[in-house]
């Protein structure tokens, strides 16, 4: 019930916002209130969640189209609950930001933002492939409109690119969903078994690679992140990208263990290439958004490395890093928006010197940046370290690439910080440009505080993402000892064994 409520609350909120012609501020306020209630609801869900249990929890299942084996089936695992937590927080911050700056055509705008939130939550909760597909698609429609109507000068080009890319991914996924469902006789993710069909795996994997995006499927990213309203970019890079991570963790790998293992090298190479490529482009990007956008791409490559490490360290690290990156990236985009509003531009050449006389902006941007570059001791560092340690198992070269990523991240983040804050004020920085207002601070501060808490205690997430780890380890070790390779997580435990092939070893005891 709670899961359904988490999905339906924002959707209902969207309908109410769209239906009643309230004054602009009231509409925005209502939407923000709904977003905050969603956060509250998530806290209730988390408090009822047993983080030591690796199985599906808070689940609801209803037959939908019985003859086709389609059901409304939702629920959470540890890792998906954490991803949902990041979602509701980022979404509340984004809606709050829109409230703060006052978007045009508020009814449509806020309804779409809330719909988007509901769709993302539904994607993370879906335990039925068709429901997953529908939610996945339902995210796109609000995004098209949000970018196309409220975006910057080149919004049409951005929207078109975004549509073309995501539609291509959706098609592949739809085909894969249908093919998988037909061969399995059910669309339920819980009941279905595994498949060794490489093509269906590729259908899913490419769809997720486009959504993340992974190199070289990122053609939509530069324009969309630049032209979208800044809080939509925050949602896009912070949480929409994480639906791809969820897709890998819940579908592409557990349902296709053998193809995933066979093609792991391909994915790892692309992810590693994306990490370096994104970092290098971020390093020379000419504007704030460009840096954040490409760094986001680099981070998705990093997280994917962790997933395809296929071991506890990599998987747990990937989830931790996903949650941390969601908050970092959203905070960064909102801060970029705040700087752009003050200066009228995000071009690095025109900025600078904002630290003087604006201590709050300087402190907040510096703190976020430091976490973004994964200084040791931060939650992002903890995630990166786990990923680095995990992916070492697949080859030392991948670990070395992660290490290279650490250095490059320092280079591009420090460049951003200095370009905005330090040296002499740039041509676009006028003395009247104010420090952060309390309202703006209130939007980013909660995310930064969560990041600080996670920095003090990253085990909070990493330990409870796949708690099945511990119970299933003995099983996995047995397989490993007899020459097999095993990777484990919740009841998504799969063992790859040369002799017996891929088969599920879970649900764990």
């Amino acid at each position, binding site marked *: 019930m709670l899961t359904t409520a988490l999905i339906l609350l924002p959707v209902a909120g969207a309908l109410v916002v769209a239906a009643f012609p309230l004054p602009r501020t009231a509409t925005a306020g209502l939407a923000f209130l709904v977003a905050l209630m969603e956060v509250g609801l998530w806290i209730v869900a988390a408090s009822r969640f047993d983080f030591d249990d690796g199985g599906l929890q808070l689940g609801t299942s209803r037959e939908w189209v019985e003859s086709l084996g389609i059901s409304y089936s939702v629920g959470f695992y540890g890792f998906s609950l954490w991803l949902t937590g990041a979602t509701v927080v980022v979404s509340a911050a984004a809606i709050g930001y829109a409230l703060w700056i006052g978007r045009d055509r508020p009814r449509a705008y806020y309804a779409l933002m809330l719909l988007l939130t509901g769709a993302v939550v539904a994607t993370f909760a879906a335990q039925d492939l068709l429901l997953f597909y529908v939610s996945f698609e339902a995210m796109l429609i609000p995004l098209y409109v949000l970018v196309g109507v409220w975006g910057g000068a080149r919004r049409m080009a951005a929207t*078109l690119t975004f549509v073309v890319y995501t539609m291509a991914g959706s*098609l592949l996924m*739809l085909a894969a969903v249908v*093919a998988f469902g037909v061969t399995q006789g059910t669309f339920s993710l819980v009941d279905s078994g595994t498949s060794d069909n490489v093509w269906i795996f590729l259908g899913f994997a490419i769809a997720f690679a486009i959504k993340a995006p992974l190199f070289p499927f990122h053609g939509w990213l530069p324009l969309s992140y630049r032209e979208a309203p800044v809080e939509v970019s925050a949602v896009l890079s912070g949480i929409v990208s994480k639906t791809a991570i969820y897709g890998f963790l819940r579908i592409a790998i557990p349902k296709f263990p053998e193809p995933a293992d066979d093609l792991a090298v391909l994915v790892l190479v692309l992810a590693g290439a994306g990490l370096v490529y994104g970092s290098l482009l971020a390093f020379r990007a000419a504007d704030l958004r460009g840096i954040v956008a490409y760094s986001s791409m680099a981070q998705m490559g990093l997280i994917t490395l962790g997933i395809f490490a296929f071991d506890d360290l990599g998987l747990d690290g990937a989830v931790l890093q996903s949650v941390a990156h969601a908050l970092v990236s959203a905070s960064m985009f909102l801060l970029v928006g705040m700087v752009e509003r003050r200066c009228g531009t995000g071009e690095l050449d025109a900025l600078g010197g904002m630290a003087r006389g604006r201590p709050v902006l300087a402190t907040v941007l510096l703190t976020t940046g430091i976490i973004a570059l994964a200084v040791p001791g931060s939650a992002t560092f903890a995630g990166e370290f786990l990923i*680095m340690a995990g992916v070492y198992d697949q080859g030392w070269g991948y670990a070395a690439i992660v*290490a290279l990523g650490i250095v490059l991240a320092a280079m591009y983040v*420090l460049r951003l910080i200095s370009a905005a804050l*330090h040296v002499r004020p740039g041509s676009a920085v006028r003395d009247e440009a104010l420090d952060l207002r309390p309202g703006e601070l209130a939007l980013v501060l909660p995310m930064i505080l969560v990041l600080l808490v996670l920095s003090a205690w990253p085990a909070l997430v990493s330990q409870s993402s796949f708690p099945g780890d511990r119970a299933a380890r003995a099983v996995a070790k047995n397989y490993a000892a007899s020459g097999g390779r095993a990777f484990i997580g919740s009841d998504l435990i799969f063992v790859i064994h040369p002799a017996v092939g891929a088969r599920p070893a879970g649900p764990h005891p």
Partner: protein
Amino acid sequence: MVAGAWICLFAPLAGSLAITLAGQTISRRMAGWISTLTTFVAFGGALVAFFGTWAEDPDQRENLSTAYTWLAAGDFDVGFQILVDPLSTVMMLVVSGVGGLIVWYSMGYMAGDDEERRYFAYMSLFVFSMLLLVEAGNFLLLLVGWGLVGLASYLLIGFWHSRPEAVAAAKKAFVMNAVGDATFALGIVLLVWQAGTLEFFGVFDQADSLSPTMVNLVALGLLGGAVAKSAQVPLHTWLPDAMEGPTPVSALIHAATMVTAGVYLLVRAHPIFEAAPDIQHLAAVLGTVTLLLAGLVALVQWDIKRVIAYSTMSQIGYMFMAAGLGAYGFAIFHLMTHAFFKALLFMAAGVVIHHLGGEQDMRRMGGLKSVLPRTHIAFLVGTLALVGIPPFAGFWSKDAILGSALATGGALGWTLYIAGLVGALLTGAYAFRLYYAVFRGKQAEVEHVPYGPEASHPPTTHAEGPLSMLVPVGILTVLSTVGGLVYIPGVWQPFTDWVGQTAEALVEPTVAEDYLTSAFAVTFGLVGLYLARRAFSAGRQLVTRPDAWRVLEHKLYFDELYDALFFRPAVALSLALRRDVEEPLIERSMDEIGSGTIQVGGEVARVQSGLLRTYALTIAVAVAVLVVVFVAVR
């Protein structure tokens, strides 16, 4: 005892948080007091930990205390844990003690700066991070402290962030240290897989059973971190630039504590380095190369702080030599005495810089002996300790290191020994070149625009600074004079015995070797002094050949080399990727559709919908085909 260590660790963090959260509601002076007092509270905690450990039974002096599980994944976990043992308690005392004095000194030094609160918040953050580094009970937490001191260093080097030079120096320091952090992290990733734990004792127990290749790689990774943090060749170029930070920062971070962290790491992880003797010797060799190179470059510098910075690199080279030869006690001993006299030199230099309104160019100094008599004495004591003239602190520690090289013998031992003696000569030369230029000779004229990051500072009204500056300088003067007396060869050696409980020395010079070395080293130092004095009297420089001068002035072209090898290729590569891959292949294809759409105006809707319609049709067909293919191809 363990409680003392925890208090020691968290008091400065509490101070930093208090200053940050209080913001404008407290006065700048109050912020200074909070920072100073919390650092001294940490010192109190360190004393409790030290004496508590002292009181323990000698074989019970290793106490691990875990607060909670910091990071966990699968069956791998890392605790937030501290290790209280002879080595860590010494380091705690040095860090919090010298740190407290320097923070206190800062109150006088930074008075009147715009952003004193931010300064003190950063300083307290640094002290916390440094204490975390030395107290950590496992490699990952050590790396956390390691990274956080780097962060604090970045923040404080770039403290005067309106200066482009300061910002560039801060970035350079951070990025070079990130290289070290990365190799450090790779090294401990290997340990995760090879040893299954990152706890010191767990790892050390297995150090001998790891494969030689693995242990070499681990040691190499750790050495990479150590070399970057301690500004040793080849990752040394950030330290001189770091002098853009306020002078007390240079004293605390870039002389007394952070830059010596590499030495601490070599000693702390000694079982790993002992299992990888080649890498351990590499550390000694790198240290020796650094000590010669830095000593040479120091001969031609004009900036008073940069001379001292090169001197720091050079002295840390001696510590690396000691740690690389297995003379752990002497490495830590020299670390401690160096913390005293180098902090003293920086702080005395700070008084000089203040007095001259921010001037740092020693060509515009001179004759300050009569104007700043007390500072003159302090600086002279620091210089004598640095050069290793008995009975000052540096004499005991540096000579012990050279004695160890002699005791090691063989080609390696002798080479290092001779290089170390030449280094002593260089030290005498550059140290007294600086001393004479600043304090002797004609008094400098004051009518000029000062050079240096602190040039905006108004000349102080107090001749030698307020009490908050004088007292710490006085205390350090005393420590630099008598601080070496805890090791007198043949008489007593409580200090090295104490550290030896954690890291037993591989090599120990005999008393004869020790005194013989002392005779040589002091002679070499005095020759250096004599050369500096003669050059000064004759009014010429120590390096007279113009081409040699030019090479040294360019610091042997390391900056230029790295620029050409790394920075420019990275920029070129990223621009090339943008120009040749991202724009033509990835952005433009879609871009043309987009811009075409917008330009055509009236036709927009039709073109667009036409495209979409075609697209939709393709989609439907594609899905159908794909489903068939997916199901059929099995």
